[in-house]
């Protein structure tokens, strides 16, 4: 019955020919591969925690330890201001999106090279690969998130309606990581230097983002320019959505959002442009 149905429908017609220059994103095909996307993300997560003693607890341990170190050195010793927020909470609320960003960026940048076997042996929309890597980062984020709620209860800070915008900032974080990851992932196939510079990029980016310090240290009129680092807008927005201790950093978020959108759209097209050589070069 089912077979009869399948043969009754016109089979898909594909034309294979050399393409050059920019090509369309073919989002329809990507949508058809959504199950593969989830399977690949699920594989990454499952494999990562398969043989670890702490398992998923790692997702909490990393930001927690970073938070303790930042609190000790920046909060207690250097007395970095934190806009009236208890410093541990101030740091942890930024480390959450930061960890998501750093993980998703690293994984998606390496994803094409790591999945070389898949790329040279079977066809599927290549965009699935970096997307799955970024998606896997969201799981760590979800595991590490409840701790921030616990800390807010400890410090008696109540959630406001602004928390409803939090999902937007989570997507914003992942999108920023993916945007950079698409560029670096495609470049990594051609130039393996990318892999080595990646740790440096992440470190540099961390120092340039308001994780350990508030963006209010930047003079007010320069703040929108600070938003050119999209993670500045993301982190301040994230803090605002959770804690709402400072006024909404509108201009900075607008600039960051614009930069991310530009990077992301450019990255998608660049990736699509480069993917036809992946199987030959990787």
């Amino acid at each position, binding site marked *: 019955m089912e077979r009869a149905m399948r043969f009754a429908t*016109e089979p898909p017609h594909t034309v294979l*020919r*050399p393409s050059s220059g920019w090509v369309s994103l073919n989002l329809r095909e990507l949508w058809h591969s959504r199950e593969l996307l989830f399977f690949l993300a699920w594989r990454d997560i499952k494999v990562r925690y398969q043989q670890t003693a702490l398992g998923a607890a790692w997702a909490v341990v990393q930001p927690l330890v970073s938070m303790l170190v930042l609190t000790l050195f920046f909060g207690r010793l250097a007395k970095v201001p934190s806009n009236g927020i208890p410093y541990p909470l101030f740091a942890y609320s930024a480390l959450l999106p930061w960890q998501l960003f750093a993980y998703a960026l690293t994984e998606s940048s390496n994803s094409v090279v790591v999945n070389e076997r898949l790329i*040279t*042996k079977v066809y599927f929309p290549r965009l699935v690969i970096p997307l799955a890597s970024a998606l896997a980062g969201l799981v760590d984020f979800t595991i590490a998130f409840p701790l921030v709620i616990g800390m807010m209860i400890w410090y008696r800070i109540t959630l406001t309606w602004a928390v409803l915008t939090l999902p937007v900032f989570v997507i914003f974080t992942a999108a920023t990581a993916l945007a950079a990851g698409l560029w670096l992932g495609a470049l990594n196939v051609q130039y*393996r230097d990318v892999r080595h510079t990646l740790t440096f990029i992440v470190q540099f980016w961390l120092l340039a983002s308001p994780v350990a310090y508030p963006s209010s240290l930047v003079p007010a009129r320069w703040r929108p320019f600070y938003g050119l680092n999209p993670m500045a807008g993301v982190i301040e927005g994230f803090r605002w959505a959770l804690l709402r201790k400072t006024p909404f950093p509108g201009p900075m978020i607008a600039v960051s959002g614009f930069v991310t959108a530009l990077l992301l759209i450019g990255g998608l097209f660049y990736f699509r442009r480069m993917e036809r050589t992946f199987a030959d070069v990787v």
Partner: protein
Amino acid sequence: MSNLAIRCDGIAKQYRLGEREKYKALRDVLTHAMAVPFRRMRSVLSGAAPIGRRQESWIWALQDVSFQVQRGEIVGIIGQNGAGKSTLLKVLSRITQPTRGQAEIWGRVGSLLEIGTGFHPELTGRDNIYLNGAILGMKKEEITRKFDAIVAFSEIESFIDTPVKRYSSGMYVRLAFAVAAHMESEILIVDEVLAVGDTQFQKKCLGKMGEVARQGRTVLLVSHNMAAIHALCSRAILLQHGRAVKDGNPVETTRCYLDGLENQTDSSVIDLRSDSVARTGKGRILAELRLKNAGGAPTTAYLCGDDMVLEFDIDPPFTVSDPILFVGIDDNIGRRIFTVSSQYSRSEFPAFDRPLTAVCVIPDLCLLPGRYSLSVCVGNPYDWSMDLVVNAASFDVHASDYFGSGRMPPQELGAVLVKSQWQVLSGVVRR
């Protein structure tokens, strides 16, 4: 609706030599960019040709390949290593783009260029079925529906929740093939997967492929196993140096392939006069040995069941009365498979007293596929080895459908192929 499944029009694919191994480092690009103006200046000054894309660093893996495949056809693709078979499959399964030309495909394509693509050693058999299935383009619902059939086919029921890294290689391959065998695409592109696993498993693969064929699906199959090509395919395409040189009946095409294999490392004409030939005996009687096929063409590649023709040029330095010729065939581990002799077949030669040529025909070569060496000897009843050359020549035997069943006994069951007739008689056994 057209009845075509695949149409290739002048497909060509160019690769840069060494590109797959050597990716660029950004540093090299930067230094290159710095160096180019100086080099260009130097080449202008010295009057040399400008630096461009040097032609020799590019190769054409495929050149102008055109063919059509009707729906339901099973087409074998044969050719030597590096002839472009895998590249062709990669282009047709969209892994890489053609450099020139175009291909059209009507139907869902399932490609199986490797067994177990995407298998992760840390994951269990169950997880890997889903993962691999999704990678091969199956829907989750489809995998769930076929899950039991896949597990049953793979024969690893009790290990399904064990990580794949603990599997034996046989179990791994069985599971991987089981997933692939349950793909439902209209067009199946398969590369050499019949070559893996033990003989038992290969049989099962072959059976599954036959089943796929009967379902009316289109199959493109690369294999070095000529027996499989003969048994499964209705047509075969021979690729040589990236070009499709023959397209037609599988038996004729494989024949053409074997003729082309000749003169790779083996020579079909062996000069036995030279001093470098290691020989024992009284003197140099054998001058030249030529290996030919039934049609008289020189070759060192035979199919099981072929007629082998050997020509001996004899140039005796002295008269050999009552001469006898021997030919011994050894397999690749030096085990003597058989010896033929003019004496056993009662061919009596006149005395060798002048240059002449003797011909020996070994009909219906009953050797298993493999590599063999050939020793030749001239003697007479008084001195068995007047001129003996051990391992004078080597040749290959390739699988063919010797028994008309698509099957061959495995190596461990013997060294020769012997035909047999079987029947069942009723009422013979007394109770």
